[in-house]
């Protein structure tokens, strides 16, 4: 759908509290940008539907900085925290 203007705040997905929704802005790659980590986690995230402009809702996170449970395009995903930190989302201004 149409992209949100850059008015909202851009934060890592891990900054969202349970029940909050954000719009994927970009995915930070691993080391020094570019290709990123060897196994192409960016591609995998995209393939699962986390493309820029997509709405993602954090349901909850496992305790002690565990993985996040998110809902994207109607499917429920578990994302490791390290990875979730690289997903930058825009949250709407209140």
């Amino acid at each position: 759908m149409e992209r949100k203007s850059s008015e909202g705040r851009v934060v890592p997905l891990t900054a969202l509290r349970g029940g909050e929704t954000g719009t994927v802005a970009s995915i930070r790659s691993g080391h020094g940008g570019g290709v990123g980590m060897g196994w192409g986690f960016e591609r995998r995230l995209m393939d699962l539907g986390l493309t820029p402009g997509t709405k993602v809702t954090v349901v909850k996170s496992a305790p002690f900085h565990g993985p996040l449970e998110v809902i994207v395009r109607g499917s429920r995903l578990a994302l490791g925290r390290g990875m979730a930190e690289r997903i930058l989302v825009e949250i709407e201004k209140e």
Partner: protein
Amino acid sequence: MTDKKLAIALAGNANVGKSVVFNYLTGLHQHIGNWPGKTVEKAEGTLHFKGYTIDLIDLPGIYSLSTYSLEESISRKYIAVEKPDLVINVVDASVLERNLFFTLQLLELGNPMIVALNQVDVAKRKGIEIDVGKLERLLGVPVVPTVAIKGIGIFQLLEKAIEVAEKGKREGRVQVRYGEEVEKRIADIVDAMKNVRSPYPPRYLAIKLLEGDEEIVKEIDEAAPHIALYAKKLAKELEDMHGHSCSTVLTSERYEVAGCIAREAQKMIPPLKPTVEERLHSITTDRIMGYPIMAFALLSMFFAIFALGNFASELLGNFLYGLGPLFLKIIGTGIVGELLWGGVIEGIIAGATIALPYIVPFYMILYVLEDSGYLSRIAFLMDNAMHKMGLHGKAFIPIMLGYGCNVPACLGCRIMETERERFLAAFVTTLVPCAARSVIILGLVGQFVGIQWALALYAFDLIVIFLLGRAAFRILPGEPTSLIMEMNDYKLPHARTVLKQTWFRLAEFIKIAFPLIVVGSLSVKLAEVLGWLETIAAILSPVTVTWLGLPSISGITLIFGVMRKELLLVMLAALLRTTNFAEVLTPVQMVVLGLVAMFYIPCIATIATLVKEFGWKKALSITAFEIIFAIGLGGIASRMLAPIL
């Protein structure tokens, strides 16, 4: 067409009921092996329908047709190069948009195709109503609604499959239309590629070149390097325009199309109350409640398996070993008879008394957990703990399996994404005390030293696993990966699929483990008959007696243990001429023996599995390390425990 043969491939996301459809269609006529030279499973089956002999291939469950993983690369090659007569795309109706993303990629490959819109019942419960006719029009291929788990729609699916395959060509091709600027560049590349021959359709090649797909770029780079270069330039232009990588742009647009189709074809009225599945999910992944529930579920599973397994194992063992005198009567008690019975047959019996009572129920429960969806919740809950070892949540699954038997556990490490993680997980898994080792720990330490010492050994094992896992993760080069996993809705497991998977796993276990168990026990028996055992024990005595403080004959039992760990106790009893080990061994000796047996080497069947999965070098380095580690640890323990016990 005289022989009327058809090749049909099943393709789709993971957990959409593909294997259930496959099982319904092929029944018992199926064969599960590996793709040539790969550690990816290949399920094939045949069926007869309307005069056709249909070869059905169940492709691995994947989310995309890029070359991100081995499974994806294999599936894509199969569809594009082998060109099956038809592709049946199994789609989860309750997660339509995500599934259609994959459907669109299949459409780009251009094979004749139909869609099995599966789990329409689940979708309905979630308040999703799908207009099949509309979906058909939007996709340009036939869509058959199914509920595979109940067999609904399977017959119609097959009829439709034949009908479409007979036509041989797809009518009314619907293509993903990308944005103008992308389409223009696709057309430019297609134009430039007029003379390039490839099993892939030109448009597909052009799209993949823009995305920078490694395999395709390599292929084109070899055939026509200037085109690869040209595509790279065009991709750069798109990247500059959009501010995202070109593959991101194309993936986004593909998802846009999938989203539009899904929104047009489905009506969504979310139910007012959360469904039972929904509530079950919330409780089992709850920050607080999730853990005790998991602990309860797993402990009761282990308890049930060990209690039942022990009982069944004894029953089976008594019966089979009871056949000994009869066998020897027939074959004679000479050296041949002894070798055959003590070497070959007893080896098979030992394998059987472990495999059947422990491994079968273990697998069954595991597949019930997997099929129902609970396994992914466990991975979710354990992700954090696994991260401390540089692994992620999914690695907990092979580790759990290891408590049953290390062989399937090592095979189970395939669920990890990278070679490095597979190896790390396998290493950690071989440190998990399997059922056979539990027999030693419980039967020796638990019974004669005290159950608290047996439990202490288990606890110590967990610490060692954690520390060694962490060390290995530090030493091995490479990046840790994170968990990315779908948590499908809970569903009732499909009994026939569970039973079949268990059966195939068992067959695999027998194939890998049994020849080695037989060869191993035969050679040990041979050494015994030839009177070499005392010599071997004497050679080992600096280690066993001086360092570990054990009686000299324990060297023989440890050699036996390599072949069949559960026999370590039987051997010990035979050599010491008593089953009351407290009479002949001190508590310290028993604990040390239990400790060494727990760590000193994965059994020969596990070593064989490691060789199969990782090659000789890695398998032997794990083995060598564990021998040295266990012996070192045993000696230290023997000195430290002496004043306490």
